[in-house]
């Protein structure tokens, strides 16, 4: 029925099957939309946030998807600026994933503010010294870049591409994509960094506070670095999942291997920096503010904020995947690779979780308790909403756009057209 829209040389499931898949995800999406409407009309009292937890699940989700969406800028950087040409076979997908991540991040930010109707004040009455302003500006601009990068992909749809203007536009945009990618990398560097800066500058919060370089705390650089390390891991992770879901090989091993190797190096170097940072923070910064490392970790057995979380982030989800990715023999084993990228993705998520939520849970005043928080269903639903939206957008894109250039070659259609 929709065969005219499906790219040439590839096979897609039946429209019925596809419709069911979209419907399932659509239902989840609608659930999220319902929660979103509740929040818009009734206010943020629909969440379980408190005055101690001003930032909660959403901000974590925001930081996490942006970190993971970092695959787009970093792969773009590698492909267009550094000239790692093999990566052209995965760049489309990296861009798509980035687009999903960033649009989700913006959506979540729009829910998260108490006065969405005047959220534009952040642009209009901007305080340029606020990390959040930098985040908002760069995020929006970079989302523009991702849109620019995604548009030619849409225009390459078989039917759209028949329109000469679209065809030429796509062609021209591809032509100067390096320029856009470079601008995107510039913007990404700053907003990934400012997200790190968000907690790093909070000198009233010794858990998050870091010293740094000029106006940038060390977390500024760590966030950019970790996004560059874990973003590609997420690209590989989603690619693998897509391959599992479609039952097809979509990207050649050498491409994945190259990206995994680079990600491994990035992760390894990031971990070195992160460990130094953690040590410096624990040994110098925090004590100068009257804290010891263990003040930041709850002594309660079974606590969500025990020291285990630091061990998990650095060793299990940092050093371990870095090692796995750096050893060619290991990373070439598909299962090990998958495990490694999964851990790296978890590591980035855990890092953002800790920097946002544990920062607020840990009391600063000696007479205040550890604060607890558990998200309300509305928060969960609106956080899952982008996931459903991402699945739908990826499914649509996969079905109708030539996302994977290597797919026809890897999956020749019998009696091909």
């Amino acid at each position, binding site marked *: 029925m929709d065969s005219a829209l499906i790219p040439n040389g590839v096979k897609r499931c039946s429209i019925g099957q596809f419709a069911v898949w979209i419907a399932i995800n659509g239902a989840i999406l609608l659930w999220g939309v319902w929660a979103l409407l509740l929040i818009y009309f009734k206010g943020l009292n629909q969440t379980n946030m408190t005055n101690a937890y001003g*930032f909660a699940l959403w901000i974590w989700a925001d930081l996490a998807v942006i970190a993971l969406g970092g695959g787009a800028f970093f792969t773009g950087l590698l492909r267009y600026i550094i000239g790692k040409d093999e990566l052209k076979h995965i760049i489309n997908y990296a861009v798509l994933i980035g687009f999903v991540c960033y649009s989700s991040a913006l959506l979540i930010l729009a829910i998260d503010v108490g006065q969405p109707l005047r959220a534009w004040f952040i642009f209009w009455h901007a*305080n340029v010294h*606020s990390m959040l302003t930098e985040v908002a500006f760069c995020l929006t601009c970079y989302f523009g870049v991702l849109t620019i990068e995604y548009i030619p992909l849409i225009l390459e749809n078989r039917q759209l591409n028949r329109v000469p203007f679209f065809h030429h536009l796509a062609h021209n945009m591809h032509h100067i994509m390096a320029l856009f990618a470079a601008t995107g990398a510039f913007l990404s560097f700053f907003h990934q960094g400012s997200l790190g800066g968000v907690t790093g500058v909070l000198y*009233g919060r010794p858990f998050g506070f870091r010293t740094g370089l000029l106006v940038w705390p060390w977390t500024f650089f760590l966030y950019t670095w970790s996004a560059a390390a874990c973003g590609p891991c997420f690209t590989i992770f989603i690619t693998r999942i897509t391959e599992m879901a479609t039952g097809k090989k979509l990207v050649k091993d050498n491409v994945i291997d190259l990206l995994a190797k680079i990600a491994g190096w990035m992760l390894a170097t990031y971990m070195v920096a992160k460990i130094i940072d953690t040590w410096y923070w624990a040994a110098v910064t925090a004590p100068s503010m009257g*804290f010891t490392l263990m003040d930041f970790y709850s002594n309660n057995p079974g606590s969500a904020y025990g020291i285990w979380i630091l061990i998990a982030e650095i060793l299990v989800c940092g050093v371990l995947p870095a090692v796995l990715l750096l050893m060619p023999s290991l990373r070439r084993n598909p299962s090990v690779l998958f495990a490694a990228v999964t851990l790296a993705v978890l590591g980035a998520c855990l890092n953002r979780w800790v920097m946002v939520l544990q920062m607020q849970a840990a009391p*600063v005043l000696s*007479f205040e308790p550890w604060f607890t928080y558990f998200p309300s269903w509305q928060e969960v639903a609106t956080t899952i909403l982008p996931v459903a939206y991402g699945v739908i957008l990826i499914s649509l894109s996969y079905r109708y756009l030539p996302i994977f250039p290597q797919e026809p070659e890897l999956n020749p259609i019998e009696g091909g057209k």
Partner: protein
Amino acid sequence: MDQHNGSNKKFGMVIDLDKCTGCGACMVACMAENNVPVREDETNKMLSLHWMRVYRLTNGKPFPQSEECFLPRPCQHCEGHHGHSPCVSVCPATATDYDMHTGIVSQIPTRCFGCRYCMAACPYHVRQFNWWDPVWPDGMERMLNPNVSVRMRGIVEKCSFCYHRYQIAKDKAYAEGRRELQEGEYQTACTQACPAGAILFGDLNNPKHAVARIAQPDPAREGKSRNPNAFRLLERLGTNPKIYYLSTREWVRKAGDTEVRKPEKA
């Protein structure tokens, strides 16, 4: 032609914790003065709006060595380094500001769009979010103070040192042809209400004012007090607050510091 009146003031407080009885008058005075709404259930203090909150501190020792102390906590009006208090520089929309002429950290509800970054920045939890529409029980909206605007849902609010009282006091002075205020002409609602006289308010820059005499801020050490019984909350963080607390009990002074962590409650 800077029409600002004379020298820079640095309004601040001295709260004598030995005098404070934890009666709660300051909280009520603040609520009544500043149109802070009340909700049916106010027992979750982290969902409750209170510009002034009285904490109960314990020395953590077993019966009968246990001791308690009450600590009223308004906005600390941190000066940080040169006015860069923890919350001010983080606000993306310039809804909060530090005024060098008064030392007051402002919060403008109509500019705020509710990102809550300042709440995350403030270690004292003085910044609170309007999770709900402000609602007054039927008829009680008649006691709203027109000098303080009612804050809408979805924004952050906090203690302003009753800035409107400064404006009112200045109006009176202007009417009498004066630019400068006498000590005591501008008082916060909590200071005025405290039946124990535990709260003093005034200009820390003016050595004639009681607050300056008692707090004895040392400008060379970011306002650290020279009074051995005085301390400020979380001084080591460099927040440079303008609320000085007095206590003759060492454990109380320590509790205000970051170094002593309370053993966690199960």
